[in-house]
């Protein structure tokens, strides 16, 4: 398996950006009033 030896590929950066946006959306979902309260 011969692979190019440059730094982080562009697809990884795009993937990371999308993942960060999704994590932010996930966190916002949990702090904006539609998170579970008072159960368990």
């Amino acid at each position, binding site marked *: 398996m011969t*692979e190019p*030896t440059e730094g982080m590929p562009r697809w990884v950066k795009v993937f990371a950006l999308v993942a960060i946006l999704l994590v932010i959306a996930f966190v916002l979902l949990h702090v904006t009033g539609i998170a579970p309260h008072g159960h368990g």
Partner: protein
Amino acid sequence: MTPGARKLLLTAHVTCSVGWLGAVAVFLALALFGLASDDATKVRAVYVACDLVGWLVIVPLSLASLATGIIQALVTPWGLLRHYWVLIKLVITTLATAILMIHMRPIGHVARLAAEAGLSSTAERGLRIQIVADAAMALLALLAATTLSVFKPRGLTSLGRRRQAQR
């Protein structure tokens, strides 16, 4: 490890991972129905089913997918931390499994209310929206992991580059 054993392990990993994806799709369909329906009896049945599908299918498949994926990476030349696509799949699977474990609690809460006939079609709406959103995000994450497995995009991590240079 013999080629036959490797193929058996790969079969187990693919089965668990794709089965997990399918089970989450079923869970999402049930959660959407539970959120949208006005029929309280059906809504209660749906959340009891969600809890069962979660504990009996989704949780075991997620743990099996994580375990077989780690073993698969370690016994093949791909390695666990050498290629970005393997590393990202590991992160997705680990995070999805951890978040799933955390979210089985609110699902259990809604299922208990449903089993005790204390859940109307409008009760716990915020929690039910959250269950739908979590299932949708899990489905997206698992689709991304499946796509990575099929395409195996190029890209070595710094560890992978060091290992390649040593050879």
